[in-house]
């Protein structure tokens, strides 16, 4: 009888009926550390697959295995590494939309350091289309939020444009030169002489021979003397910069700022990345699309070349 009494307290004190009281009903179990009104991610995941779910959608199984280089060719398919921002169904729905868009628009393989020409529909231009050519200095975003930044130097002025990869106004993405650089982001081109980011608009595309690996440009870029947009001397991880001589005082201060132990931090590395097993599962969907569509396109490209 004791248990009945205590559980009675849970419910609304009504004269005649025991009734649901949503406020007091769910306070004790599966509560995360902060806030009541949230389901923990793992509980949702468990529920989606459990037999208790009446509206369960069974996961489809695919046979193909994903090649390892896919994680570099399609980086935007990888979800955000922070598990607090992730949801399996949301990722899946986004991937579906992304692959649909890839059927319509040919989004080629490119990397930070490649030179691209992008054509966009523009309402405010008389010809209704505008083309921009530049060096890709950054790739960012996950899923439909994926974007890339192009940089060029025009009329003595540095110009950068950020494009959403899945923006439907994108008409064409042309790779003029396919290559990688030593770093994952080239923001230091802002503080380098203009010649390193100047590209002519009538540049002709260079093609690589069939089956060749993507070359890495080993060029080290000399920076202008400071002031800079960032303290580049602090960035030990950057390999592609050639620092000028700095005043003694600045170099002395450097020893206080630098964190040389960070490159040995395994946990930091782990938190940045998504595990290989999970990657394979994600790229299974891409493989099907790739085998169907991309090969055809590749052959077409080859025909054009010959």
């Amino acid at each position, binding site marked *: 009888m004791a248990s009945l009494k205590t559980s009675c*307290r849970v419910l609304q004190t009504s004269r005649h009926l025991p009734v*649901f009281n949503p406020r007091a009903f769910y306070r004790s179990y599966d509560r995360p550390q902060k806030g009541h009104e949230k*389901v923990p991610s793992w509980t949702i995941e468990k*529920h989606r697959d459990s037999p208790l779910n009446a509206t369960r959608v069974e996961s489809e199984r695919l046979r193909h295995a994903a090649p390892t280089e896919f994680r570099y060719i399609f980086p935007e398919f990888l979800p955000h590494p922070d598990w607090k921002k992730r949801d399996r169904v949301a990722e899946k729905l986004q991937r579906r939309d992304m692959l649909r868009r890839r059927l*319509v628009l040919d989004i080629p393989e490119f990397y930070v350091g490649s030179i691209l020409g992008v054509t966009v529909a523009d309402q405010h231009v008389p010809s209704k289309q505008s083309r921009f050519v530049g060096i890709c200095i950054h790739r960012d975003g996950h899923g439909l939020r994926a974007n890339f930044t192009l940089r060029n130097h025009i009329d003595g002025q540095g110009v950068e444009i950020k494009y*959403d990869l899945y923006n439907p106004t994108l008409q064409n993405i042309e790779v003029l030169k396919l290559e990688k650089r030593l770093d994952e982001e080239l923001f230091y081109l802002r503080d380098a002489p203009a010649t390193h980011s100047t590209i002519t608009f009538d540049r002709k595309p260079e093609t690589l021979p069939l089956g060749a690996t993507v070359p890495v440009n080993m060029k080290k870029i000399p920076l202008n003397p400071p002031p800079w947009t960032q303290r580049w001397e602090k960035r030990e991880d950057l390999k592609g910069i050639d620092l000028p001589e700095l005043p003694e005082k600045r170099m002395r201060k450097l020893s206080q700022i630098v964190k040389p132990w960070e490159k040995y931090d395994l946990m930091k590395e782990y938190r940045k990345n998504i595990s290989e097993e999970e990657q394979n599962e994600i790229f299974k969907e891409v493989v099907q699309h790739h085998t169907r569509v991309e090969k055809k396109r590749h052959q077409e490209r080859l025909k054009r070349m010959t």
Partner: protein
Amino acid sequence: MASTCRSLCSAGVLAKCFSISQTRCILDTKPFVRVLVPTHYQQQRGVRKRPPEPFARKRRARIQDSGLSPANESFLQEVIANEAMSKVEELAKMNCPLKDGPWARGEWRKGTKRTGVVGVKIGCVPHWTTKGKKMYLTMLQVLDNHVVEYLTPDEFAQTRFVQEFHPKMKGKLGAVFVGSMGIDPRRLSPLELSLFEKHGVPPKRKVFKFVVTPNAAIRPGTPLFASHFRVGDYVDLQAKTIDYGFQGVIKKHGFKGGRGHGTTRWFRRVGSIAPGRRDVIPKGQKMPGYMGNKWRTLKGTRIYKIDTKYNVIYVKASTIPGPLHAYVRIMDSKLPNRVRERELDPPPIPTFYPQDSPEPIPEEIYHPDLFRFDMESILFPPDDPALEKKKKSKTAQKK
């Protein structure tokens, strides 16, 4: 007692786990006792305006070690799963767990209030209109929603909610209780289970109450889907905001703070509270305190897409209250203009029944303004030369 109980379990009597007497018998025995912490009330986060109510639940220990052998444990789980599965199969067969079918459907009248559904916020993604404009849509998944209970206006009038807080509703409005996501029945108390058992509904993890007019009554056991709403409808979204805990004045109210240079300890302080030599602090003065964990509503957001396979509603909003995976109450909008529109084009009442629609429902339903990713890339039409001439002449006149 314990030994008899175990034998009961192994005999599979717990398969009828929903019946109160047996569960109570089991719970009283040693291995199943849920330890009550007698001295403390459960910690309540958020601004607490009054002392804890007498019915506040006390903290309970989790059932981690049930005292059963692994074989018995797995057997129990199997039984529970089978029980749930058989119910699911029933659902699938009839599309409706009610053997006599749903209640007679009411007609739409002016001022009708329908139920809402319980969604879970799963993400926010950019989408584009067919004219190439970018906008952010939030995805809300309607996870396994069932109507758990309906109270007629007379019954509802007896509850504390109406008697003390909303006396105007008395005798006019009923209530529909909607549950979301299944839960292991062993985690609920017998009395809680009895509420679900009343209509033969599987126990639910979360229950919400929606106030409805009697013509929008739904029979308990009816599943609710994302297609309870239509594409293009306007909805209000209610959820609890992110719990930030006790915060200072800069984070909570956006004060500017001070400068450290040339002052003493003037960094993130409130500053002056009241003018002059008054003893009184004005009411509503912004001060540090508890931030977040409050119910907030975002009104008048539009539905742009519905995924009927995964039961996902895409809503045009990027600022829905609450963190990721927050429960969101999704209801018909109360904004006067939207109410007026709804009167002209009423939604399905009391809810959408899949057996009603003559054609199979499409997997995805899009708003005509929304760009579908399998459409051709957007190209703007060239300017009309006649229009341009007009523009030029206008500008010439101005000069």
